[in-house]
């Protein structure tokens, strides 16, 4: 019996094996998994928006933005004993565009911009993305198993994938 931890919108959580981290119904948001393969410590962030510099509040929840959520998640994992030097890897999923519009303004492409921001931040931290399932026009439910390092992606009408 393993522990299942739900990660809601704009939240981030870190856990040790054998926990499973779950996010239900990802749309334009991006699920970012960080994983220390040696210590089997995993983390999942549910990122809503690309850039914290655009926040109108000074005192915001770091889980909302790609840049701040990944930093915060990494800190939590280090606290649990993850080793920054031992290769922490990443898997990402989500960033769909749920609604199509004739006028493709940048606000409609929030999913794509989230994916780009997540990739830029991971690159900056020198964390390798080993697998991804991003964009498209459909929602995803994702489950990350800290024991095996597998990320399961379930969709409606677009199959199940294991990364």
């Amino acid at each position: 019996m393993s522990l299942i931890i739900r990660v809601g919108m704009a939240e981030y959580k870190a856990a040790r094996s054998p926990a499973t981290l779950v996010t239900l119904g990802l749309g334009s948001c991006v699920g970012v998994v960080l994983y220390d393969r040696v210590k089997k410590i995993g983390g999942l962030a549910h990122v809503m928006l690309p850039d914290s510099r655009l926040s109108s509040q000074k005192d915001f929840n770091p889980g909302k933005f790609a840049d701040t959520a990944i930093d915060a998640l990494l800190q939590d994992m280090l606290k649990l004993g993850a080793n920054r030097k031992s290769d922490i890897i990443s898997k990402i999923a989500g960033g769909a565009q749920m609604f199509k519009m004739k006028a493709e303004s940048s606000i409609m492409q929030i999913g794509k911009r989230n994916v780009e921001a997540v990739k830029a931040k991971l690159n900056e931290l020198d964390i390798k993305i080993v697998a991804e399932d991003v964009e498209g026009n459909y929602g995803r439910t994702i489950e990350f198993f800290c024991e095996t390092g597998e990320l399961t992606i379930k969709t409606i009408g677009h199959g199940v994938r294991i990364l």
Partner: protein
Amino acid sequence: MYSDLELDALKEIGNIGAGNAATALSMMLSKKITIKVPQVKIISFNDVSELLGGPEKLVVGIFLRISGDIDGNILIVISEEDAYALAKTLLNNNRDINRDFSEMEESALAELGNIIGSSYVTALSELTKLYLKISVPSIAFDMAGAIVSFPLSLYGYLGDTAFLIETEFVEGLAGIKLHYLMIPDDKSLKQLLKAIGVSTFESDNSRRNGGI
């Protein structure tokens, strides 16, 4: 954040919009439509999908963007079963319940969203004398969490909670329910209140629109 007077005024705006939309919907379906008293909800992002039956609940979402003097989003959410029933009523056919939505059914549902959204916004515009236009509808059939994520994200720059004016349209006999959410951009709320003459306190934190 908002005073009772302001919330009541927003509720009343929602009521007038919904009343107009219900009339239009009733004419389109030739059925009696009842509306629930609109509510102003300030809730966490996660509670929004709970409101719609949970993040994994299969729903049809119809999205329309309001722009002009104020900006905002309209999202109409219908459960899978109710959407099938509605498609059947709209096209007057005997559909097989296990079949996916046809293109014809999708466009009929989108048109329904268009009529509800437009009549809501027209009422809003007449009441406030604001210039408002509405985008063409866009439809998606997926998990509720994924459907609401987009309009909520647009609001996410401004706060950690969702602000929505919510109402429910219920079709008389079959009890088909349509969840109607209006999610205005934060700046627009103040403008909306100003337009109907509800004075608001000028807040000292200078809000930026977050580039959206």
